[in-house]
Structure formats: structure tokens, C-alpha cells
């Protein structure tokens, strides 16, 4: 008995598994994130004339009005986007998890759809509908003589970004809400707590990990997003400034790289703050059997109000898709509330040419998302449950990917892997399609990681201990107890990674090496650059939304079925 305990203890102390996993992940991050990015960011610390190390570029950054204005604008837009996105996500998440509500699954799926739209296309559609001369304003002007500046300046960015990124909050918050133990709520109710107070004091605090995970993602993502401000021609924000500097001036001017460093530092700060907010609080609930919030039946009046709110939000959220669909069927749509006429022609144009784009995209995005949840789960586990020294750094480094502009990663990859020949073919490694998968996986890893971490935070340590006490090995405990309990969060991570990887443009456009390997976003970009009309581009966009939507739905169904088979349906 004692000898057995001893061996157990010594094994527990050595734990080769986590260490090996940590080393492998660290290597992956080093090779595909740190090295390429450092290659580029090096320039920020280089004296332009002598090539020696310097901090003068950062001094220049803080002395420059434009950069400081951009900095505050970025901060303001990100914060406001979190506020607006929360306002959109909270009712949807709460109503669908808390009440018996028809169409809850539909709403949750629809809540993911905004992510499927490439932001640059979403902005096009939003401008057609809400722009100064968009549908809504033309109609308002014709009938009431007024117009609403939805899309003017920073407003436009906030509007498009919150609609685009609110699913981060919705998905993470819903997963969190589902994981809350019903008993908590019931005890509160027994003690006389009801209504909004119940939500504010019990439900929402318990769902905090999900909310904070989602909100910090929205904040960082908006902070670093490039496509939307660029398309709306809002230049005085940090990410567009970095992009404009890097892509138009290049290495001659270090400021673009300085801004990239600032972006990365700000993202890490935001994460640190969100980690501080969560620190020292325990969100795990032990009891799983009857988990999930009790669903309440709504009174008729409540039901009507709920439907009205949900419908309003859905229409708003689906506006880009409605706009895109209209555009894809439009002949000419110019300074009029609706297109002049409708046609199927654009679908015919893209139908024959887009097969390759679609298969490539499905392959790349699913491989990347798979890689993300595997690595994400592993990092979350190492950080929260192992005692490895420096484990927190895996999290920081992986999250830093969020702040690396796609262009920087793309250039970094070309720089790091172009001269590395592939085995057998001799083709440059950067031209191999798997590199695209790695780029996508790195860019999307933070989403998966936050989702997995939030999920794991809600799984009590004691469940693991129980399994181990009953004789299960560590690996078996993880695969049979921890991962299944995390499956909601893992699903959320997979879905967000998959859906957003499928429409990523900025890194891929630098790395696409041949037409036959090109993904959908590249095709969209090419189709959209036509003075002869954006109809075919919109049609391809609709294809993209449908295909990625189906993929997302399928993965949802498959993983849900898995959960149900393990008897975790609530």
C-alpha cells in the first residue's frame, strides 16, 4: 500500500505528459508565431540609419498627434463596440438559455452567422443598407426628410464591428450559462430572489468567465481589426495606421512595426486586466447531473416582448446578409433604396469557378480549427491544472497572436519560410498549402483558447480528483471526464475558429501561392475588385456564408450528439 502510494506520488511529481505537451506547443508557437513575427517586429527597434538597437521610434510614436489620436480612437471604438455587442448578445443568450423559447437553437445558430461574413464584405453590405445614401436613409429622406448617421466616421466602425463580433460574447456567454448549476439558481429563488435581481446577483456573476472571455475577445479583436475601418475609410485608428505604413512605405519606415508592437502590448494588457478581474474567484460548480439553468415558461406578455426584442436584434444582425443577398441578385444597385432589377446571372458566373475555392476553404478552416481546439484545450489545461513553471507564458504568447496584424504574419512567414525548401519537391515551404493552415490556426488560436479556458474554469478540480481516486490515469481522466465536460466550450472554440478562419483574408492574401490552392476569401477579394459590378462577388459571398454556415451547423450537430450520447443533455 505504501509502496503504491509512493510510486503514485513520484509519478505525480514527474508528470512527463504535461511537460512534453508544453514543449511541443511551445515549439509550434515559436516556429509559426514568435519567429516570423519577431523577424518583422525587429524593425521597430532598429535605428533606420545605423541599424543599431534604439527606442527612438517609440518616442516618435508618442510624440505624434496622428498616432496618439489613432490610439484613443481605437480605444474608444473597441470599448463602445463591447458595450453595443453586449447589448445585442445579453438578451439573446439569456432568453435562449433561461427560458423555454421556441427557435432557441435557430437563434443560437443565427448568432454565429455574422462571424462567417468576411468583415470587408459585411461593411459593403452595411453601407448599402445604412450608409448616407443607403436603403434606410434614402427611404427616411424620401418619406420623412431626415437621415440617421449610422455609418458616419467612428459610428460606422462601432456599428459594423459590434454586429460582426457580438457572437464572441453570445457563444461564450451561452456556453457559460448552460454550465451554471441549476441548484444555485434554485437556492437563490428559495431564498426569495427573483427577476432581474436573480440575474444580476446570481446568474450573471456565475456566467462571468464566459462573458469576460467574450468581451475581451471583442475588445481585442476590434482594437486590432483592419478590414472594417479600412473599408469605411476611417484611417485614424491604430490597425489601419500600421497596415497603411507597412504596406505602402515598407521597411523604410519603422512606424508601422512600432504600431504593431503597441497593438500587441495593448492586447496583452487587455487580457491581463480581464485575468485580474477573474482572479481569486471560483466559478466552478461541482454538481453536473442536473446542470444548466432551469428553463422557465414565460407569461404571454413577456413572450411577446421577448420575441420583439429577439426579432429586432436578429434583423439588425442579419442586415449584412440581407444586403449581400440583395446585391447578389441585383443587376444595377445605384443610389436607390433597392436594386433596379433582379437576375440569377451572377450565380451562374461564380458557380462554375468557385468549386476549388470552397473545397480549399473547408479543408483549411477545419484543419486549422481542429489544431486550435487541440492546442487550446492543452494550453488551458496546462495553465489551470498543471504546476509547470512558466505555463502562463504559453497563454500569453498564444493570445498575442490576436494582436498580430495578418499582414505582419504573412510577411513574417514569407521571410521565415520562403528559403526553406520542401522535402522531395524543393518547392519553397511558404508556398505549401499547409502553411496557410498554420497561419489560419495561429490567427484563430486565441478564440479557441479563450473558449477552452472559460470551459475549464467551470469544471471543478474535484471531479478530476474523484476520477483519479477511483483509479483512472491522468490521460484517461482528461479524455473521459475533463474534455467531455468542456465540450460546450470546445465546440464554441471550434465553431468560432472555423467560421472566422474560413473568411480570413489579410494573412492568406500574402501567402496564396497558386490559384489552385486559394481559399474563398481570396476569391471574394478578386471578385469584389470589379468596376463592372460586385454582383458576382456578392454571389460568391452568399455561397461562402451558406457553406460555412452548413459546416458550422454540422459540427454543432455532431458535437451535440456526442454530448447527448454521454448523457449530458440538459
Amino acid at each position, binding site marked *: 500500500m505504501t509502496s503504491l502510494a509512493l510510486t503514485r506520488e513520484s509519478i505525480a511529481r514527474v508528470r512527463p505528459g504535461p511537460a512534453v505537451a508544453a514543449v511541443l506547443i511551445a515549439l509550434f508557437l515559436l516556429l509559426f508565431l514568435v519567429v516570423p513575427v519577431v523577424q518583422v517586429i525587429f524593425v521597430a527597434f532598429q535605428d*533606420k540609419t545605423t541599424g543599431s538597437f534604439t527606442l527612438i521610434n517609440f518616442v516618435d510614436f508618442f510624440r505624434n498627434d496622428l498616432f496618439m489620436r489613432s490610439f484613443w480612437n481605437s480605444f474608444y471604438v473597441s470599448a463602445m463596440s463591447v458595450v453595443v455587442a453586449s447589448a445585442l448578445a445579453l438578451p439573446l443568450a439569456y432568453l435562449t438559455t433561461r427560458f423555454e423559447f421556441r427557435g432557441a437553437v435557430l437563434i443560437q445558430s443565427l448568432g454565429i452567422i455574422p462571424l462567417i461574413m468576411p468583415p470587408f464584405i459585411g461593411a459593403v453590405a452595411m453601407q448599402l443598407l445604412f450608409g448616407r445614401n443607403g436603403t434606410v436613409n434614402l427611404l427616411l429622406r424620401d418619406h420623412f426628410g431626415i437621415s440617421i448617421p449610422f455609418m458616419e466616421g467612428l459610428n460606422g466602425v462601432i456599428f459594423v464591428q459590434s454586429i460582426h463580433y457580438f457572437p464572441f460574447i453570445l457563444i461564450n456567454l451561452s456556453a457559460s450559462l448552460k454550465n451554471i448549476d441549476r441548484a444555485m439558481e434554485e437556492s437563490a429563488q428559495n431564498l426569495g430572489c427573483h427577476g432581474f435581481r436573480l440575474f444580476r446577483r446570481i446568474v450573471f456573476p456565475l456566467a462571468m468567465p464566459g462573458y469576460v472571455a467574450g468581451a475581451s475577445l471583442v475588445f481585442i479583436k476590434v482594437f486590432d481589426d483592419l478590414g472594417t475601418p479600412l473599408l469605411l475609410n476611417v484611417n485614424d485608428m491604430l490597425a489601419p495606421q500600421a497596415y497603411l505604413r507597412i504596406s505602402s512605405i515598407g521597411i523604410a519606415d519603422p512606424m508601422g512595426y512600432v504600431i504593431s508592437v503597441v497593438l500587441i502590448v495593448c492586447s496583452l494588457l487587455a487580457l491581463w486586466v480581464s485575468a485580474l478581474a477573474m482572479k481569486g474567484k471560483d466559478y466552478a460548480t461541482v454538481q453536473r447531473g442536473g446542470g444548466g439553468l432551469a428553463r422557465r415558461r414565460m407569461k404571454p406578455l413577456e413572450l411577446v416582448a421577448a420575441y420583439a426584442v429577439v426579432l429586432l436584434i436578429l434583423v439588425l444582425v442579419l442586415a449584412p446578409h440581407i444586403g449581400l443577398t440583395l446585391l447578389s441578385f441585383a443587376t444595377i444597385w445605384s443610389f436607390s433604396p433597392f436594386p433596379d432589377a433582379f437576375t440569377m446571372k451572377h450565380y451562374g458566373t461564380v458557380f462554375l469557378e468557385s468549386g476549388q475555392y470552397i473545397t480549399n476553404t473547408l479543408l483549411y478552416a477545419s484543419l486549422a480549427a481542429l489544431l486550435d481546439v487541440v492546442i487550446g484545450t492543452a494550453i488551458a489545461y496546462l495553465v489551470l491544472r498543471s504546476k509547470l513553471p512558466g505555463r502562463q507564458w504559453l497563454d500569453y504568447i498564444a493570445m498575442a497572436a490576436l494582436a498580430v496584424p495578418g499582414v505582419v504574419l504573412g510577411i513574417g512567414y514569407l521571410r521565415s519560410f520562403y*528559403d526553406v525548401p520542401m522535402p522531395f519537391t524543393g518547392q519553397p515551404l511558404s508556398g505549401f498549402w499547409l502553411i496557410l493552415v498554420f497561419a489560419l490556426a495561429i490567427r484563430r488560436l486565441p478564440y479557441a483558447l479563450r473558449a477552452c479556458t472559460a470551459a475549464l474554469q467551470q469544471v471543478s478540480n474535484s471531479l478530476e480528483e474523484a476520477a483519479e481516486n477511483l483509479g483512472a490515469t491522468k490521460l484517461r481522466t482528461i479524455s473521459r471526464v475533463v474534455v467531455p465536460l468542456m465540450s460546450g466550450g470546445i465546440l464554441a472554440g471550434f465553431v468560432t475558429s472555423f467560421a472566422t478562419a474560413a473568411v480570413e483574408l489579410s494573412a492568406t492574401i500574402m501567402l496564396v501561392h497558386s490559384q489552385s490552392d486559394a481559399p474563398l476569401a481570396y476569391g471574394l477579394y478578386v471578385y469584389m475588385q470589379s*468596376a463592372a459590378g460586385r454582383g458576382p462577388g456578392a454571389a460568391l459571398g452568399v455561397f461562402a456564408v451558406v457553406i460555412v454556415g452548413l459546416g458550422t451547423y454540422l459540427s454543432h450537430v455532431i458535437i451535440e450528439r456526442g454530448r447527448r450520447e454521454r448523457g449530458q443533455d440538459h
Partner: protein
Amino acid sequence: MSRTLHGVAAALAVLLASSTAAFAQDPSGKLVVVTSFPKDLTSAFQQAFQKAYPKVTLEVLNRNTNAGVKYLQETASNNGTDLFWASAPDAFEVLKGANLLQAYKPKVEGIPEKVGAYPINDPEGMYAGFAASGYGIMWNSRYMKANELPAPKEWSDLAKPVYYDHVAISAPSRSGTTHLTIETILQGEGWEKGWRTNKEIAGNYRTITERSFGVPDGVNSGSFGIGIVIDFFALSSQASGFPVEFVYPTVTTIVPANIGIVKNAPNKAAAETFVDFILSPQGQEVLLQPAIRRLPVNPATYAKAPADYPNPFKDTSLGSQVNFDVEVSQARYNVVDALFDQLITFQLDGLKAATRAIHQADAALAKKPNDKAKALLAEARDLVAAMPVTAQEAADPQLSGAFTVERKSATDAVPERQAQVEQKWAAFAKDNYAAARKKAEEALALAR
């Protein structure tokens, strides 16, 4: 019988082909083209070329001009690209300067030396012009009607108060073609006057787009009314049915769009064939297609063009006003871009506020003249137009040294860092616009 003959002929042809230079006429394999051109243009050429040379697989990679140049620079060590195909001549100059192109003299006959005042081919043969484009003004006729705006004719028209908040342009630092437009105005009117015009027009900008395509896109959809564009954007939009119109102002430049063979091209033979193909009568005709609408460089092709197609070889007024000096343009290239960005793009709000105040004071003065107010208004205008650098300074290598792509050696001292220079210019513009606005408001108060 005929089959045997065919066979013999084919065998002979193969023999000939493999033993002589004729081999180059029947190339095969993969041909990789990096281009900034829209799909409408590339796929039309792709189809025509594949039909003529079925053994070559043409692979087109779309990247915007800057990204394309960067891509070629980053991949030069193991080049996999055969051709670079884009509008802006200066992008080719960058590649040429970096020794990334190789010379080729097209075999096609009948292409003149110049289009407008601009040489069609690079004198060293590193790249060749295959189509020409001019710059001008496009507008959405529905938008103009709804806002009761007159049709503009000249650049200076765009500075009129009636167009306030209706005009758009792309940033010259982002679009090689817009850079040429700005430079054309500067060369056509001189540095000081040219900037004055540019800033007066800029005071009416609705937006400054990041991509050159953003301008025709916005005019087509009606998000703004008037755009400063390269001609084919407007012509092809029009040919595709959008309610848009286009005019070449007197001060315009007709500039060739180019193609160049990349150094160490993997499929040099096919690359040369492609260059000759797009210059051939057959290739030039592709340019006339409605979705493309570029000006052929082969004068003979215009015979097949639709009526009222612009013809720079016949209509000599096109682009003749400006004797575009490439050397001058080259010497101050980055400085002009940075000036535009710092004085206009990133200070647009201040500039627009000043412009609006000037327009209002002007309107009030027209009704109720007042000499003191008039003087104040002239001061305000001068403040807006003022430049932090002269034409000479702009061309000074010392200044442009702060913006150049690479330092030559560690001892090449640069007096000021780019960020410092820019901050100085931005502060200059900000203060001037604020002062101009104040003066214009004073003038307005006096005229009331």
C-alpha cells in the same frame, strides 16, 4: 494521303521547333503572372491566350500593386513568378531599381514611341506598356440629379462650394494611379498653384479611400457623387450599365499600364510569348471589351473600337497639356505622398471645417461686399494653401532621404527621421487650418 502529309508536316514542325528559335513560339508549361488588375481584365486575357497557346497554363495571382511588389521582393531569392502586370509605372521603377526585372524587346511592330506625352516603353526594355489610361472625373448621374449638382469639367470645378462633401479620391500613397493624378496637377499648374488646387478640391472631399477601387465603387453605388479616377474604372462601369459619366479635364496625363518579365523567370519563353501576345492585334482588341475599356497602345486597334471611344493617338488634346516629367516625379515621389497624407488625408476634418467657413464667408460677401472681410478671406485661403516645403526642397535628396526605401550605407546621414518630418508637417497643417477657419469666421461676421 492528306493524313500522311499532315503527319510529315507535324513531324517537320516539331523538328523545326526543337532545333530553332521557333521553339519560343510554341511554349508550354505553367506561366505565373502576378497582377493588380481586376478579374474582368485578367480572365479575358487568360481565355484569349489559352486559346492561342493551349499548351501553356496561365496562372494569375491577384495582389494589389504594393503587395505585389513586396511579394516579388520577398520571394526573389527563389523566384517562382514569370510576369508582373500592373498599371503604375512607378511600381515597375521600384522593381527595376531593385534589379528584379529582366529586359525584353517585344517582337510586335507598329507600336509608337509615345502615348500623349509619355513614352510607352521603358528605355532600357525592362517593362513594356500594353494599354494606356488617362485620369479624370466620374460621377453618378442619379446622385447629381437628386442633389441638383452641375456636371464638372475641370479639376478646378471640383473646388466650387456646390461640391462640398460630394467628392472622393483615393490616397496617392495607396494608389499609384492617384499619385500620378496629383503629380499631374502639380506639374501642370506648378508646385504652389498645384497644391492650392489640390487642397481646395480636398476641402470638398467626402472621403479619401484606402483602395483606388473604393472610388468607382462608391460612385457606382451612390455613396458619394463624384470621384477622381483612372478612366477605365468609369468607362467599364458605364459599359456595365451603371448610371455614371466621365470627363477628361484638360490637365490630364495619359500613362501606359505595363507588363514586365521577372528576373529568373521559371518559364521565360512563355513569358515572352505572353508579352508579345497582349501587344498583338488580337491581344489589343481584348482591351475594348465592355468590362475592361482600356486604351490600346496599338493605334490600329481603334478601328475596331465602338463610337466615341477615347483615342489618344487621334485626339491629341488628351494629355498634351502636361509634358509629364518622370524624373521630376521620381525625385519627389515619396515626399508628395507624405505631404498629401499629412496635410490632407489625416487632417481632413480640419481642412473641411476651414473650407466650409471660407465657402460661407464667400457666399455672404457676394451679397454684402466688405473690403476688410475680403482681405481676411484671402488670408484664410492663403493659410489653407500654404506649403511647409518648396518645390526645390521636395526634390532635395536630403529630405527625400527620410523616406527612401533603404539606406545606402550606415554613413549616409539622414538629418531627420520620417516620423519627425511628418509630425512637423501635420502640426503645420493643423495650425494653419484652424487659423484659416478663424479668419474666415471673422470675415463672415463682418459681412453679416
